[in-house]
């Protein structure tokens, strides 16, 4: 082991861990995981961004911790160990959100707590962190968190812009539009429209990536 040349921190293989989930292996549009929170918290851009950040942090550090102790976890109780680690991190994130961005924390309500049950986290821990080294696991966690966050931010952008005419709380569509007869699309603020938007994103994504299309 020691005489083998050390792999550089950002080798092509490691970078792929980071960028793969953004496109070819996106947790939402390709693996169809984490849909529940993607529909629930994206009515506005700001909560969507905070949620994306929270999931990325939890995903990265839970991957790191589980990877560090992966050889000591008895396989029969591994799920409960994973849950303990994730729950501890989620509580930390929740407390930080309450302390610094209380209004957003209120809007996210139960969905921060529900990060514990987010399929993406359990999926990455089971599929990756249990069998890979800490640094790779950490990158994989960040990559998947960002892949999830990317879709959340796209959803939040369109839903807030078309549903409320604002972005990040600031008015984007000018008042003169409303006077000319433009009306905000109330359906954008309802979760079903988010599902339809996810569907459209998947549609566009697959028509650009023929390799993703099922036979």
């Amino acid at each position: 082991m020691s005489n083998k040349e050390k792999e550089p921190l950002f080798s092509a293989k490691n970078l792929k861990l980071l960028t793969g989930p953004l496109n070819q292996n996106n947790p939402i549009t390709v693996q169809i995981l984490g849909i529940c929170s993607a529909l629930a918290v994206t009515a506005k851009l700001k909560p969507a961004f905070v949620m994306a950040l929270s999931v990325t942090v939890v995903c990265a550090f839970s991957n790191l911790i589980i990877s560090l102790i992966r050889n000591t976890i008895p396989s029969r109780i591994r799920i409960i160990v994973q849950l303990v680690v994730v729950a501890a991190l989620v509580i930390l994130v929740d407390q930080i959100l309450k302390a610094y961005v209380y209004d957003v924390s209120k809007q996210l309500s139960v969905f921060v707590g529900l990060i514990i049950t987010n399929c993406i986290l359990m999926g990455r821990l089971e599929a990756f962190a249990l069998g890979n080294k800490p640094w790779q696991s950490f990158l994989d966690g960040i990559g998947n968190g960002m892949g999830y966050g990317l879709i959340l931010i796209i959803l939040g952008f369109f839903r807030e812009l078309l549903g409320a005419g604002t972005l990040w709380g600031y008015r984007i569509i000018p008042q003169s539009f409303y006077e000319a007869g433009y009306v905000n699309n109330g359906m954008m603020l309802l979760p079903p429209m988010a599902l339809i938007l996810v569907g459209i994103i998947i549609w566009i994504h697959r028509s650009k990536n023929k390799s993703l299309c099922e036979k």
Partner: protein
Amino acid sequence: MKSLRNYIDKIKPNFEKGGKYEKFHSTFDAFETFLYVPDTVTKAGSHIRDVIDLKRTMFVVVVALLPALLFGMYNVGLQHFAAMGVADAGVMQCFWHGFVKVLPIIIVSYVVGLGIEFIFAQIRHHEVNEGFLVSGMLIPLVMPVDVPLWMVALATAFAVIIGKEVFGGTGMNVFNPALLARAFIFFAYTPYISGEKVWISGLSKGEGIVDGFSGATPLTEIANALADKASALSFSSTPIDWFLGTIPGSIGETSFIAIMIGAAILLFTGIASWRIMLSVFAGGYLMGLIFNCIGANIYMDMPAYYHLLLGGFAFGAVFMATDPVTAAQTNTGKIIYGLLIGMFAVLIRVVNPGYPEGMMLSILFMNAMAPLIDHYVVESNIRRRMKRMNVASK
């Protein structure tokens, strides 16, 4: 006419394989088959010989819609002049006013819908299907007359792309496209398709309205009576008005009798299923009777047959529920499907005060359930026959 045929024959080679406009083959094909009976014949497989292809079917439905459309135009004018206090408005004056108001909605619906159909047909090298001929006529008929045109355009685009094209085009859709367009406006721009002001042209702008004229549909009047905790329902119109259709409402839905003429055409030509039509009415009436038995508030005590005359019930039963693509396919399934549509429509009306009209949501819901109903009907048939076979073999 002969010269048109000659002209088409002359330009036809351009659109065939190797021609210079080959890309636009499906567009050309759509226009040619729309104007003339196609001369191509099926060359392989089973041959069912019948003059009525998809195009003729759709055309009959459009004809069946005409009474409701023409009466709707007349009624738009009638309601408008009643609201303005013009007492001596003639039939033609009423009709002309309605014609001017309704025609733009029809044009927008057809231009947007057919435009999208043509684009998708070009991209996918399909033929342009005729399904939208009916949808494009149904969409204006389920809209309030004062709806902004850009909303109609957006709703039509939504219905055609998300409701139809993503599932593979005509014949593949899960939901009725026309109702999907209405549902889109209903949820996205609620104030423009509900309440009291939108059903009569000019009322939302408040131009010289007669004092005390509300513009509420009978269903809204019921909702208001419930909200005010009134001791009895009071209508500004009578069941005779509802039967004739001289009440405020969506453009095509008000007249029971005009819709029944359409129903007669559809049933006579065998295009719509009588099982569905009958069972929707039966279901609505049955649910009305059940509510009469419960009688917990004034709405539940309303005579059950009122439900069949009011709002979009008859229109939905005749033109929406019978859509052959989205309805159940088996005969038993059709009866269950229709009964449940009628029952849910009345249930939503009476129990949920937020939605005065339940027909749209009820049909869309049952559209989603139709494959499930068919599945169980087929399964039970298989079980029954297996049982019979086992008994026989013993």
